[in-house]
Protein backbone atom coordinates (compact mmCIF):
# COMPACT_ATOMS: atom_id res chain seq x y z
CA UNK A 1 0.00 0.00 0.00
CA UNK A 2 2.89 2.32 0.76
CA UNK A 3 6.06 2.57 -1.30
CA UNK A 4 7.99 1.22 1.67
CA UNK A 5 6.28 -2.17 1.41
CA UNK A 6 8.32 -4.45 -0.77
CA UNK A 7 5.48 -5.56 -3.04
CA UNK A 8 5.29 -2.00 -4.27
CA UNK A 9 5.96 -1.88 -7.98
CA UNK A 10 6.53 1.32 -9.88
CA UNK A 11 4.44 0.14 -12.79
CA UNK A 12 1.38 1.38 -14.57
CA UNK A 13 -1.00 -0.87 -12.65
CA UNK A 14 0.20 0.47 -9.34
CA UNK A 15 0.09 4.06 -10.54
CA UNK A 16 -3.48 3.82 -11.75
CA UNK A 17 -4.79 1.76 -8.85
CA UNK A 18 -3.03 3.51 -6.01
CA UNK A 19 -3.41 6.85 -7.72
CA UNK A 20 -7.17 6.54 -7.81
CA UNK A 21 -7.28 5.18 -4.29
CA UNK A 22 -5.27 8.00 -2.79
CA UNK A 23 -7.17 10.52 -4.91
CA UNK A 24 -10.45 9.26 -3.47
CA UNK A 25 -9.06 9.36 0.06
CA UNK A 26 -7.77 12.89 -0.54
CA UNK A 27 -11.12 14.09 -1.81
CA UNK A 28 -12.92 12.63 1.19
CA UNK A 29 -10.28 14.01 3.54
CA UNK A 30 -10.35 17.46 1.98
CA UNK A 31 -14.15 17.47 2.03
CA UNK A 32 -14.10 16.77 5.73
CA UNK A 33 -11.46 19.43 6.32
CA UNK A 34 -13.53 21.98 4.42
CA UNK A 35 -16.67 21.15 6.39
CA UNK A 36 -14.67 21.29 9.57
CA UNK A 37 -13.06 24.64 8.78
CA UNK A 38 -16.35 26.19 7.78
CA UNK A 39 -17.85 24.97 11.03
CA UNK A 40 -15.03 26.51 13.02
CA UNK A 41 -15.34 29.75 11.11
CA UNK A 42 -19.09 29.96 11.66
CA UNK A 43 -18.71 29.15 15.32
CA UNK A 44 -16.05 31.79 15.80
CA UNK A 45 -18.14 34.38 14.06
CA UNK A 46 -20.93 33.46 16.48
CA UNK A 47 -23.48 32.36 13.92
CA UNK A 48 -26.58 30.68 15.19
CA UNK A 49 -27.18 27.32 13.58
CA UNK A 50 -30.84 28.16 13.04
CA UNK A 51 -29.84 31.07 10.81
CA UNK A 52 -28.20 28.71 8.36
CA UNK A 53 -31.45 27.83 6.70
CA UNK A 54 -32.07 24.28 7.63
CA UNK A 55 -33.45 22.12 4.93
Amino acid sequence: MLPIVFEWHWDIGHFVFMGLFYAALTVIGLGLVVAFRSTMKDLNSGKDPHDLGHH
Partner: protein
Amino acid sequence: MDDSKFWPQGVKRCKPGMFIAWLLLPLALGGWATLSAFLCLYKGLNQTNMNDYFAFGVWIVVDLAIIALGAGAFFTGYLTYVLRRHELKNIINAAVIIGFICYSGAILMLGIDIGQPARGWFGFWHANVHSMLTEVMFCITTYAIVLIVEFVPLILENRQISKVPDLAIFAHHLHRIMIVFAATGTFLSFFHQGSLGGMFGVLYARPFAFRTGYMIWPWTFFLFILSAIASGPSFTTLIVMWTEKMSGRQLTSHSVKMLMGKISGFLLIFYMVLKTADTAYWANVTLPNMGLTMGDLYKQGPYGEWLLWVELGLCGWLPAIMLMFQKVRETYGLLALAMILNCSGAVFNRFVFTIQSLAIPVLPFENFASYLPSWQEWGISAGVIAYGLLLFSLAYRYLPVFPQEAELNK
Protein backbone atom coordinates in the same frame (compact mmCIF):
# COMPACT_ATOMS: atom_id res chain seq x y z
CA MET B 1 -40.47 5.80 29.96
CA ASP B 2 -41.02 8.41 27.37
CA ASP B 3 -38.64 8.89 24.48
CA SER B 4 -40.89 11.18 22.44
CA LYS B 5 -38.56 14.15 22.80
CA PHE B 6 -36.05 12.25 20.69
CA TRP B 7 -38.55 11.63 17.89
CA PRO B 8 -38.25 13.72 14.75
CA GLN B 9 -40.28 16.92 14.68
CA GLY B 10 -43.97 16.53 14.03
CA VAL B 11 -44.29 12.77 13.75
CA LYS B 12 -45.67 10.03 15.96
CA ARG B 13 -44.00 6.73 16.86
CA CYS B 14 -45.24 3.59 18.55
CA LYS B 15 -45.11 3.14 22.33
CA PRO B 16 -41.67 2.36 23.79
CA GLY B 17 -42.90 -1.01 25.05
CA MET B 18 -44.02 -2.04 21.62
CA PHE B 19 -40.79 -0.81 20.10
CA ILE B 20 -38.74 -2.82 22.57
CA ALA B 21 -40.90 -5.86 21.92
CA TRP B 22 -40.16 -5.51 18.21
CA LEU B 23 -36.45 -5.14 18.92
CA LEU B 24 -36.46 -8.50 20.67
CA LEU B 25 -36.52 -10.17 17.27
CA PRO B 26 -33.29 -8.59 15.95
CA LEU B 27 -31.72 -8.95 19.38
CA ALA B 28 -32.51 -12.65 19.47
CA LEU B 29 -31.10 -13.10 16.00
CA GLY B 30 -28.13 -11.04 17.10
CA GLY B 31 -27.55 -13.40 20.01
CA TRP B 32 -27.53 -16.35 17.63
CA ALA B 33 -25.08 -14.48 15.42
CA THR B 34 -22.83 -13.59 18.37
CA LEU B 35 -22.60 -17.21 19.42
CA SER B 36 -21.89 -18.25 15.84
CA ALA B 37 -19.26 -15.55 15.43
CA PHE B 38 -17.58 -16.53 18.66
CA LEU B 39 -17.41 -20.18 17.59
CA CYS B 40 -16.07 -19.30 14.15
CA LEU B 41 -13.40 -17.01 15.54
CA TYR B 42 -12.42 -19.19 18.46
CA LYS B 43 -12.57 -22.62 16.87
CA GLY B 44 -11.98 -21.65 13.26
CA LEU B 45 -13.93 -22.02 10.07
CA ASN B 46 -14.40 -25.75 10.62
CA GLN B 47 -17.59 -24.54 12.31
CA THR B 48 -18.97 -23.87 8.86
CA ASN B 49 -19.84 -26.45 6.23
CA MET B 50 -17.62 -24.80 3.67
CA ASN B 51 -14.85 -26.95 2.26
CA ASP B 52 -12.12 -26.89 -0.36
CA TYR B 53 -14.70 -27.35 -3.12
CA PHE B 54 -17.09 -24.76 -1.74
CA ALA B 55 -14.45 -22.26 -0.77
CA PHE B 56 -17.18 -19.64 -0.67
CA GLY B 57 -20.50 -20.32 0.97
CA VAL B 58 -23.67 -18.62 2.04
CA TRP B 59 -21.73 -15.74 3.60
CA ILE B 60 -20.30 -14.61 0.29
CA VAL B 61 -23.74 -14.96 -1.30
CA VAL B 62 -25.23 -12.74 1.43
CA ASP B 63 -22.30 -10.35 1.12
CA LEU B 64 -22.67 -9.95 -2.60
CA ALA B 65 -26.44 -9.78 -2.36
CA ILE B 66 -26.56 -7.03 0.25
CA ILE B 67 -23.86 -5.05 -1.50
CA ALA B 68 -25.84 -5.25 -4.72
CA LEU B 69 -29.06 -4.29 -2.96
CA GLY B 70 -27.27 -1.58 -1.03
CA ALA B 71 -26.38 0.04 -4.33
CA GLY B 72 -29.54 2.10 -3.91
CA ALA B 73 -27.47 4.42 -1.74
CA PHE B 74 -24.88 5.38 -4.29
CA PHE B 75 -27.16 5.45 -7.28
CA THR B 76 -29.93 7.40 -5.58
CA GLY B 77 -27.24 9.70 -4.18
CA TYR B 78 -25.87 10.15 -7.65
CA LEU B 79 -29.30 10.98 -9.05
CA THR B 80 -30.14 13.28 -6.15
CA TYR B 81 -26.94 15.23 -5.68
CA VAL B 82 -25.14 14.97 -9.00
CA LEU B 83 -28.02 14.82 -11.47
CA ARG B 84 -30.15 16.91 -9.11
CA ARG B 85 -33.36 14.90 -9.22
CA HIS B 86 -34.77 16.81 -6.23
CA GLU B 87 -37.86 14.64 -5.75
CA LEU B 88 -35.50 11.86 -4.69
CA LYS B 89 -34.48 13.87 -1.59
CA ASN B 90 -37.59 12.34 -0.08
CA ILE B 91 -36.04 8.89 -0.11
CA ILE B 92 -32.29 9.54 -0.19
CA ASN B 93 -31.92 9.34 3.61
CA ALA B 94 -33.44 5.89 3.66
CA ALA B 95 -31.18 4.86 0.78
CA VAL B 96 -28.09 6.09 2.64
CA ILE B 97 -29.01 4.25 5.82
CA ILE B 98 -29.73 1.04 3.95
CA GLY B 99 -26.46 1.45 2.07
CA PHE B 100 -24.59 1.98 5.31
CA ILE B 101 -26.22 -1.07 6.86
CA CYS B 102 -25.45 -3.23 3.84
CA TYR B 103 -21.84 -2.17 3.53
CA SER B 104 -20.92 -2.21 7.18
CA GLY B 105 -22.75 -5.51 7.55
CA ALA B 106 -20.82 -6.97 4.66
CA ILE B 107 -17.50 -5.82 6.11
CA LEU B 108 -18.35 -7.35 9.48
CA MET B 109 -19.25 -10.60 7.79
CA LEU B 110 -16.06 -10.67 5.75
CA GLY B 111 -14.12 -10.24 8.98
CA ILE B 112 -15.44 -13.60 10.10
CA ASP B 113 -15.31 -15.21 6.67
CA ILE B 114 -11.57 -14.90 6.26
CA GLY B 115 -9.50 -17.54 7.99
CA GLN B 116 -7.14 -15.04 9.59
CA PRO B 117 -9.21 -12.02 10.68
CA ALA B 118 -6.18 -10.50 12.41
CA ARG B 119 -4.55 -10.28 9.01
CA GLY B 120 -7.49 -8.70 7.25
CA TRP B 121 -5.48 -5.53 6.63
CA PHE B 122 -2.80 -7.44 4.70
CA GLY B 123 -5.05 -6.94 1.70
CA PHE B 124 -4.19 -3.25 1.94
CA TRP B 125 -0.65 -3.58 3.17
CA HIS B 126 0.50 -6.22 0.68
CA ALA B 127 -2.02 -5.20 -1.96
CA ASN B 128 -1.98 -7.13 -5.21
CA VAL B 129 -3.42 -4.52 -7.54
CA HIS B 130 -4.18 -7.10 -10.21
CA SER B 131 -6.74 -8.82 -8.03
CA MET B 132 -10.37 -7.87 -8.36
CA LEU B 133 -10.74 -8.67 -4.69
CA THR B 134 -8.15 -6.04 -3.81
CA GLU B 135 -10.17 -3.52 -5.74
CA VAL B 136 -13.27 -4.65 -3.87
CA MET B 137 -11.55 -4.34 -0.50
CA PHE B 138 -10.19 -0.87 -1.22
CA CYS B 139 -13.42 0.45 -2.70
CA ILE B 140 -15.75 -1.04 -0.12
CA THR B 141 -13.71 0.31 2.75
CA THR B 142 -13.35 3.72 1.21
CA TYR B 143 -16.99 3.82 0.25
CA ALA B 144 -17.95 2.78 3.78
CA ILE B 145 -16.14 5.92 4.94
CA VAL B 146 -18.18 7.93 2.45
CA LEU B 147 -21.36 6.33 3.74
CA ILE B 148 -20.41 7.24 7.28
CA VAL B 149 -19.85 10.82 6.15
CA GLU B 150 -23.25 10.75 4.47
CA PHE B 151 -24.92 9.14 7.48
CA VAL B 152 -23.39 11.43 10.11
CA PRO B 153 -25.34 14.62 9.25
CA LEU B 154 -28.57 12.64 9.48
CA ILE B 155 -27.64 11.50 12.98
CA LEU B 156 -26.69 15.03 13.90
CA GLU B 157 -30.15 16.14 12.81
CA ASN B 158 -31.74 14.21 15.66
CA ARG B 159 -33.95 16.65 17.54
CA GLN B 160 -31.82 16.62 20.68
CA ILE B 161 -28.41 16.39 19.05
CA SER B 162 -29.12 19.27 16.71
CA LYS B 163 -29.53 21.46 19.74
CA VAL B 164 -25.76 21.46 20.12
CA PRO B 165 -24.73 24.35 17.85
CA ASP B 166 -21.32 22.92 16.86
CA LEU B 167 -22.84 19.71 15.64
CA ALA B 168 -25.72 21.37 13.87
CA ILE B 169 -23.37 23.66 11.98
CA PHE B 170 -21.08 20.79 11.13
CA ALA B 171 -24.05 18.81 9.81
CA HIS B 172 -25.08 21.80 7.75
CA HIS B 173 -21.66 22.16 6.17
CA LEU B 174 -21.44 18.45 5.44
CA HIS B 175 -24.78 18.70 3.68
CA ARG B 176 -23.57 21.69 1.74
CA ILE B 177 -20.74 19.76 0.10
CA MET B 178 -22.60 16.46 -0.11
CA ILE B 179 -22.19 16.50 -3.87
CA VAL B 180 -18.46 15.89 -3.41
CA PHE B 181 -19.07 12.83 -1.29
CA ALA B 182 -21.87 11.61 -3.51
CA ALA B 183 -19.65 11.88 -6.56
CA THR B 184 -16.74 10.12 -4.83
CA GLY B 185 -19.12 7.46 -3.60
CA THR B 186 -20.48 6.97 -7.09
CA PHE B 187 -17.01 6.52 -8.47
CA LEU B 188 -16.00 4.04 -5.75
CA SER B 189 -19.25 2.12 -5.87
CA PHE B 190 -19.16 1.88 -9.60
CA PHE B 191 -15.79 0.22 -9.40
CA HIS B 192 -16.40 -2.17 -6.60
CA GLN B 193 -19.80 -3.30 -7.87
CA GLY B 194 -17.96 -3.97 -11.08
CA SER B 195 -15.01 -5.64 -9.37
CA LEU B 196 -17.37 -7.93 -7.51
CA GLY B 197 -18.61 -9.09 -10.87
CA GLY B 198 -15.08 -9.07 -12.19
CA MET B 199 -14.08 -11.36 -9.32
CA PHE B 200 -16.04 -14.14 -10.99
CA GLY B 201 -15.63 -13.16 -14.60
CA VAL B 202 -11.82 -13.34 -14.37
CA LEU B 203 -11.85 -16.94 -13.14
CA TYR B 204 -10.79 -18.22 -16.53
CA ALA B 205 -10.26 -21.70 -15.21
CA ARG B 206 -13.82 -21.86 -13.94
CA PRO B 207 -15.95 -22.17 -17.07
CA PHE B 208 -19.20 -21.45 -15.28
CA ALA B 209 -18.02 -18.04 -14.11
CA PHE B 210 -15.58 -17.02 -16.80
CA ARG B 211 -16.59 -14.31 -19.25
CA THR B 212 -14.66 -12.58 -21.97
CA GLY B 213 -14.69 -8.81 -21.78
CA TYR B 214 -13.37 -5.42 -22.62
CA MET B 215 -9.73 -4.64 -21.79
CA ILE B 216 -9.07 -5.92 -18.28
CA TRP B 217 -12.75 -6.06 -17.40
CA PRO B 218 -14.83 -9.15 -18.05
CA TRP B 219 -18.46 -8.57 -19.06
CA THR B 220 -19.57 -9.55 -15.55
CA PHE B 221 -17.87 -6.35 -14.40
CA PHE B 222 -20.41 -4.25 -16.26
CA LEU B 223 -23.31 -6.61 -15.71
CA PHE B 224 -22.86 -6.57 -11.94
CA ILE B 225 -22.88 -2.77 -11.93
CA LEU B 226 -26.05 -2.75 -13.97
CA SER B 227 -27.85 -5.37 -11.95
CA ALA B 228 -26.84 -3.57 -8.74
CA ILE B 229 -28.14 -0.19 -9.85
CA ALA B 230 -31.26 -1.83 -11.27
CA SER B 231 -32.10 -3.64 -8.04
CA GLY B 232 -30.71 -1.15 -5.48
CA PRO B 233 -33.45 1.49 -5.93
CA SER B 234 -36.07 -1.26 -5.84
CA PHE B 235 -34.66 -2.57 -2.58
CA THR B 236 -34.61 0.89 -0.99
CA THR B 237 -38.22 1.41 -2.03
CA LEU B 238 -39.22 -2.02 -0.76
CA ILE B 239 -37.72 -1.28 2.65
CA VAL B 240 -39.64 2.00 2.73
CA MET B 241 -42.83 0.18 1.77
CA TRP B 242 -42.22 -2.42 4.44
CA THR B 243 -41.63 0.29 7.03
CA GLU B 244 -44.90 1.89 5.93
CA LYS B 245 -46.72 -1.42 6.47
CA MET B 246 -45.07 -1.90 9.86
CA SER B 247 -45.70 1.61 11.13
CA GLY B 248 -49.01 2.13 9.40
CA ARG B 249 -47.83 5.55 8.22
CA GLN B 250 -47.16 6.76 4.72
CA LEU B 251 -43.53 7.84 4.52
CA THR B 252 -43.04 9.03 0.98
CA SER B 253 -45.51 10.00 -1.69
CA HIS B 254 -46.34 7.29 -4.16
CA SER B 255 -44.85 9.32 -6.98
CA VAL B 256 -41.41 8.95 -5.40
CA LYS B 257 -41.84 5.20 -5.31
CA MET B 258 -43.06 5.21 -8.88
CA LEU B 259 -40.02 7.16 -9.93
CA MET B 260 -37.76 4.70 -8.17
CA GLY B 261 -39.67 1.90 -9.92
CA LYS B 262 -39.25 3.57 -13.26
CA ILE B 263 -35.51 4.02 -12.74
CA SER B 264 -35.23 0.37 -11.70
CA GLY B 265 -37.33 -0.76 -14.62
CA PHE B 266 -35.37 1.03 -17.30
CA LEU B 267 -32.05 -0.08 -15.88
CA LEU B 268 -33.35 -3.62 -15.56
CA ILE B 269 -34.46 -3.73 -19.21
CA PHE B 270 -31.03 -2.50 -20.22
CA TYR B 271 -29.39 -5.05 -17.96
CA MET B 272 -31.55 -7.91 -19.20
CA VAL B 273 -30.75 -7.19 -22.83
CA LEU B 274 -27.04 -7.27 -22.11
CA LYS B 275 -27.26 -10.20 -19.71
CA THR B 276 -29.19 -12.25 -22.25
CA ALA B 277 -26.68 -11.42 -24.94
CA ASP B 278 -23.83 -12.28 -22.57
CA THR B 279 -25.39 -15.61 -21.67
CA ALA B 280 -25.92 -16.46 -25.32
CA TYR B 281 -22.32 -15.59 -26.20
CA TRP B 282 -21.01 -17.55 -23.24
CA ALA B 283 -23.10 -20.59 -24.15
CA ASN B 284 -22.31 -20.55 -27.82
CA VAL B 285 -18.75 -19.29 -28.02
CA THR B 286 -16.93 -19.19 -24.67
CA LEU B 287 -17.97 -22.63 -23.43
CA PRO B 288 -17.47 -24.61 -26.65
CA ASN B 289 -13.92 -23.23 -26.80
CA MET B 290 -13.34 -24.94 -23.48
CA GLY B 291 -14.86 -28.18 -24.74
CA LEU B 292 -18.08 -27.72 -22.83
CA THR B 293 -21.72 -27.18 -23.57
CA MET B 294 -24.11 -25.26 -21.38
CA GLY B 295 -25.90 -28.52 -20.61
CA ASP B 296 -22.70 -29.86 -19.00
CA LEU B 297 -22.86 -27.11 -16.42
CA TYR B 298 -26.51 -27.53 -15.51
CA LYS B 299 -26.68 -31.21 -14.72
CA GLN B 300 -25.05 -31.52 -11.31
CA GLY B 301 -27.19 -32.16 -8.24
CA PRO B 302 -29.84 -29.51 -7.79
CA TYR B 303 -28.09 -27.06 -10.10
CA GLY B 304 -30.34 -27.58 -13.09
CA GLU B 305 -31.42 -25.27 -15.88
CA TRP B 306 -34.36 -24.15 -13.76
CA LEU B 307 -31.94 -21.75 -12.09
CA LEU B 308 -31.37 -20.03 -15.40
CA TRP B 309 -35.09 -19.69 -16.10
CA VAL B 310 -35.80 -18.34 -12.62
CA GLU B 311 -32.95 -15.84 -12.75
CA LEU B 312 -33.41 -14.57 -16.28
CA GLY B 313 -37.11 -15.15 -16.81
CA LEU B 314 -39.14 -14.99 -13.61
CA CYS B 315 -36.83 -12.61 -11.77
CA GLY B 316 -35.41 -10.82 -14.79
CA TRP B 317 -37.50 -10.17 -17.84
CA LEU B 318 -40.83 -10.38 -15.99
CA PRO B 319 -40.18 -7.55 -13.49
CA ALA B 320 -38.40 -5.55 -16.18
CA ILE B 321 -41.49 -5.62 -18.37
CA MET B 322 -43.82 -5.10 -15.43
CA LEU B 323 -42.00 -1.96 -14.36
CA MET B 324 -42.33 -0.55 -17.88
CA PHE B 325 -46.07 -0.17 -17.37
CA GLN B 326 -47.38 2.96 -15.72
CA LYS B 327 -50.38 0.90 -14.47
CA VAL B 328 -48.11 -1.51 -12.62
CA ARG B 329 -46.13 1.28 -11.05
CA GLU B 330 -49.31 3.01 -9.95
CA THR B 331 -50.60 -0.07 -8.14
CA TYR B 332 -48.88 -0.36 -4.75
CA GLY B 333 -49.03 -4.17 -4.66
CA LEU B 334 -47.89 -4.78 -8.22
CA LEU B 335 -45.07 -2.29 -7.87
CA ALA B 336 -43.93 -4.11 -4.73
CA LEU B 337 -44.19 -7.47 -6.48
CA ALA B 338 -42.15 -6.33 -9.45
CA MET B 339 -39.53 -4.90 -7.12
CA ILE B 340 -39.39 -8.10 -5.07
CA LEU B 341 -38.84 -10.10 -8.24
CA ASN B 342 -36.20 -7.65 -9.36
CA CYS B 343 -34.29 -7.90 -6.08
CA SER B 344 -34.64 -11.70 -6.03
CA GLY B 345 -33.13 -11.77 -9.51
CA ALA B 346 -30.05 -9.93 -8.28
CA VAL B 347 -29.74 -12.27 -5.31
CA PHE B 348 -30.17 -15.30 -7.58
CA ASN B 349 -27.50 -13.96 -9.86
CA ARG B 350 -25.05 -13.56 -6.96
CA PHE B 351 -25.97 -17.02 -5.72
CA VAL B 352 -25.27 -18.82 -8.97
CA PHE B 353 -22.03 -16.95 -9.53
CA THR B 354 -20.80 -17.77 -6.05
CA ILE B 355 -22.13 -21.25 -5.46
CA GLN B 356 -22.82 -22.83 -8.80
CA SER B 357 -19.46 -21.63 -10.14
CA LEU B 358 -17.76 -23.66 -7.46
CA ALA B 359 -20.21 -26.55 -7.41
CA ILE B 360 -19.63 -27.56 -11.01
CA PRO B 361 -16.50 -29.72 -11.21
CA VAL B 362 -14.11 -28.70 -13.98
CA LEU B 363 -11.90 -31.78 -14.00
CA PRO B 364 -13.67 -34.47 -16.04
CA PHE B 365 -12.96 -37.07 -13.36
CA GLU B 366 -13.89 -34.97 -10.37
CA ASN B 367 -17.00 -35.76 -8.36
CA PHE B 368 -19.77 -33.37 -7.51
CA ALA B 369 -19.77 -32.37 -3.86
CA SER B 370 -22.78 -30.90 -2.12
CA TYR B 371 -22.92 -28.12 0.42
CA LEU B 372 -25.49 -26.95 2.92
CA PRO B 373 -24.58 -24.18 5.35
CA SER B 374 -24.17 -25.03 9.03
CA TRP B 375 -26.27 -23.35 11.72
CA GLN B 376 -23.29 -21.13 12.48
CA GLU B 377 -23.29 -19.88 8.90
CA TRP B 378 -27.01 -19.23 9.00
CA GLY B 379 -26.48 -17.52 12.35
CA ILE B 380 -24.01 -15.00 10.99
CA SER B 381 -26.23 -14.43 7.94
CA ALA B 382 -29.24 -13.88 10.18
CA GLY B 383 -27.10 -11.56 12.26
CA VAL B 384 -26.55 -9.22 9.34
CA ILE B 385 -30.28 -9.04 8.75
CA ALA B 386 -30.84 -8.47 12.46
CA TYR B 387 -28.24 -5.73 12.41
CA GLY B 388 -30.10 -4.09 9.56
CA LEU B 389 -33.47 -4.35 11.30
CA LEU B 390 -32.07 -2.90 14.48
CA LEU B 391 -30.26 -0.01 12.87
CA PHE B 392 -33.09 0.90 10.52
CA SER B 393 -35.66 0.69 13.31
CA LEU B 394 -33.62 3.02 15.50
CA ALA B 395 -32.97 5.39 12.62
CA TYR B 396 -36.63 5.49 11.68
CA ARG B 397 -37.67 6.13 15.26
CA TYR B 398 -35.20 8.85 16.15
CA LEU B 399 -33.95 10.46 12.96
CA PRO B 400 -35.73 12.64 10.44
CA VAL B 401 -35.40 10.06 7.67
CA PHE B 402 -38.49 10.93 5.69
CA PRO B 403 -38.98 14.66 5.00
CA GLN B 404 -42.52 14.04 3.72
CA GLU B 405 -43.70 12.00 6.68
CA ALA B 406 -45.06 14.82 8.82
CA GLU B 407 -46.86 16.32 5.85
CA LEU B 408 -48.33 13.06 4.57
CA ASN B 409 -49.68 11.99 7.98
CA LYS B 410 -51.32 15.21 9.09
